[in-house]
């Protein structure tokens, strides 16, 4: 029997996931006959598109937390910033089809604006908006990360100040005067790139792009783990001081990873907005960012597919239980979390390994019992 190495096995996993998401699911949606077991409805596909965006955020957090040991409790902020940047473009694309039949977005008419604020004007251009999706989360992460890492804030303190950052941003975006729609955020989008936004074909295309993007992120992480950069990254997680004493500028490494993770989450946010049709400051609440941490922990941190599995599983569970047990959903999530932390430190992905270890540890006792039973 041929033994596959760890990297080979995870590559195989990534390829399988990619095939399933990029090829199989859109195909089943397109060609599966209505009502058949294999058919995936438009609604399901859209739901899964949302899950995939969440999965990318989980992957980006895993890059930080799982591989570099930086627990960021503000990943939702970068996700939302990307979403807002693209949402601004979508808002302007509504044109005069809004409820007030004005060239201005509805909320601006409502708040009594006479003309478009200056910082909104460039978002009429698609390419500028796409650059903003990359640069806004990137710059915020860059400035914040530079300040935090330079002061050598780490561990628990880093977690807490990232939480404060997203909390401050959340309060800011809730303000109507901040020109980003206050607590309603952006909604009622009509078109994306000239296509009707809720048409099944548009949504299918968005799903496809999200799936491709997720696969690319997974390949990136897989490739990173093989490079020297990836090794240093993990070394920082395990013993930052040792890495620094060996002559590496851990600050720079951490900063680069932090920015990359923020951009990754930002793009996910930009893909999320047209699929869900709304973006508001709720996404920046500290509890949302904590939820992202839950996905990673449940799936298994520092594994390539863990965050994807965790994000999809937890969100599927959420959809399922908010529908079937609306009152107990939070209790289910909370209990799941406590149990995972206490009993499954390696998450779902690590479960087989854990069970194997458990079996090995107790095999001797099992055998003894068996023998005793045989003698009797």
């Amino acid at each position, binding site marked *: 029997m041929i033994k596959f190495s760890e990297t080979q096995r995870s590559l195989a996993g990534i390829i399988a996931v990619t095939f399933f998401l990029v090829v199989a699911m859109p195909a089943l949606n397109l060609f599966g006959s209505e009502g058949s077991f294999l058919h995936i409805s438009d609604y399901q596909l859209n739901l899964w598109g949302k899950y995939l965006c969440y999965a990318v955020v989980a992957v980006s957090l895993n890059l930080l937390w799982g591989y570099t040991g930086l*627990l960021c409790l503000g990943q939702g902020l970068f996700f939302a910033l990307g979403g807002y940047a693209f949402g601004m473009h979508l808002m302007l694309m509504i044109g005069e089809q809004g409820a007030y039949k004005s060239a201005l977005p509805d909320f601006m008419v409502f708040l009594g604006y006479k003309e478009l604020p200056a910082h909104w004007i460039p978002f009429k251009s698609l390419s500028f908006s796409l650059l903003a999706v990359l640069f806004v989360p990137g710059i915020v992460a860059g400035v914040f990360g530079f300040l935090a890492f330079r002061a050598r804030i780490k561990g*628990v*303190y880093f977690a807490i100040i990232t939480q404060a950052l997203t909390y401050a941003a959340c309060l*800011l975006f809730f303000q109507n005067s901040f020109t980003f729609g206050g607590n309603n955020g952006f909604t009622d989008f009509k078109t994306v790139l000239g296509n009707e936004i809720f048409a099944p074909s548009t949504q299918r295309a968005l799903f496809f792009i999200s799936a491709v993007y997720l696969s690319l992120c997974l390949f990136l992480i897989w490739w990173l783990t093989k490079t020297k950069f990836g090794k240093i990254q993990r070394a920082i997680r395990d013993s930052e001081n040792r890495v620094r004493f060996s002559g590496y500028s851990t600050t720079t490494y951490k900063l680069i990873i932090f920015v990359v993770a923020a951009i990754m989450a930002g793009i996910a946010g930009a893909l999320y907005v047209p699929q869900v049709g709304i973006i508001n400051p709720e996404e920046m609440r500290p509890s949302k960012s904590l939820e992202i941490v839950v996905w990673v922990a449940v799936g298994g941190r520092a594994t390539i597919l863990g965050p994807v599995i965790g994000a999809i599983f937890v969100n599927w569970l959420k959809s399922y239980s908010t529908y079937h047990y609306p009152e107990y959903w939070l*209790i289910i999530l909370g209990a799941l979390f*406590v149990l995972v932390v206490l009993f499954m430190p390696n998450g779902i992905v690590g479960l087989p390994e854990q069970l194997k270890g458990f079996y090995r540890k107790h095999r001797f006792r099992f055998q003894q019992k068996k023998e005793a039973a045989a003698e009797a």
Partner: protein
Amino acid sequence: MLFRFHNLIISALFLLVSQLSADDTQAREIFVEAILAEGSEQTALVESLSTTASTLVPDFLEAWKRGDIFLLEADGSAAPTPLLEVEPEQEGGTPTYFRVIDGEEMAAGSFDPAALEMARPSRKTRRVFTMTIDLLALSTPNVQERADAALKLGLKRDDDILPKLILLRETETEPSVIEALNEGIAVSMLSHGTKEGQMDAIQLLRDENSIAGLDALKNLRHDLNDGLATHPFSEEELAKLTASIASIESYISWTDFVGTCFRGLSLGAVLLIVALGLAITFGLMGVINMAHGEMIAVGAYSAYISQTVFYSLFSESTFALETYFLFAIPFSFLTAALCGFILERTVIQFLYKRPLESLLATWGVSLILQQGFRLIFGAANRQVRSPSWLLGNVEIFDITFGFNRIFVIGFAILIVFGTWFLMAKTPMGLSIRAVMQDPQMAAAMGIRINRVRMMTFAFGSGLAGLAGVFLSQIGSVGSNLGQSYIVDSFMVVVAGGVGNIVGTVISALGIGVTDQALQPLLGPVMGRICVLVAIILFLQWKPGGLFPSKSRSLD
């Protein structure tokens, strides 16, 4: 409803015939005369009502203005009898009538209601009603009311009232009322007095630091600039006026400053009570307890429960309202400590070596508890009523000090002192500090570290419960109560320096005062955002907080 209630009060007054004082009898007589009189005689009579010191006058005049006074024509040439009509309690009932002169109720069949004629005050008389009522307030026995009325009348700047105020000043004996009269007269003088009177008034308002007089002074300056003033001012006199305005304005900014400091201190005290428990569980023990906010909510709900229990035991009496709070304080501490104890035994004790994971597990617990509160107590917020000794306020130098704010500051001092005493002066505190510094060595010395950790965690949670009791007094109790404070309290502990209670105290007060100082400038939300950003920047400068724990060890 209110209207009818008002009528009921009037009728109650009329019914208390036996308790009529001499003042009231006199007032009634003058009132009847006034109703029957005409023209300027009527006006003079109404004005004279202000000297009667009777509490009935405002009600009478109000009723008269409203058209509730009727005249019953008498037989022959005798004067008609004035009656007061009181609306029936139920819709469609017949109104009852009372004789104004003695308050006797008229028997239903003794007269024909259709023959009644409404008594209308003349237009000129109507105009003096308000003034009469105001002047009447100047003769109430209550000193505070009298002083308020004096100032209020002065601020009207009415030249009819001014001589009356001056007259009253001569007979008044209460110093605080004289002061108010002086202030009021000065303000009136600014508009109507002679040149000397105006100059005296300017000086007096300056000496008294009269906030009420500022507007009048500014008006005068405005009039002078526009050339509308009655007497033109010389340069020197104008300078005096400007100096007086500046002096009062600086006094106002001083009182604002002290008021802001006080509100900041009380907000800081709230933050401190909230964060102190966290300073122990997070700062000393290193457990990131995201369920800390829910421990606060446990405390607040305990206050609610003790209120409910007291109400059901003693019915809704004032006794229950006044005393439940004293019971709620220890009760909340104990329930929250018990919850903390359970949490430590079931979850946290396995995670001392994995602090980041304690964050995740306790967040899970926090979700469970929040939903649990909603299931047990319902999704709607619960109201906890404050005992009367926490309501109200005291005013010193024009600065308002709310009792609840004073209480929370005192409460915070007490808790900090208690915590310090426990930590620094008791054997328990010694072993807590030993376990926190070096658990293995402490264990080797025979300290039962599991037990100490358990107790410490329970104590920290108990403190959160105390915070909850107080928060229940300044807002309603809901399942999200703790969530709104959790980020702030973590920031307080981090900014103060982890593992240091003095740092927590200073940073809580600092954050509270900064927040209150920024709020008027930037609005509440932007103020908070600025505080959060300021803390993040502060940590650049001092990454370990105000008082970092000193250690040569590397992590």
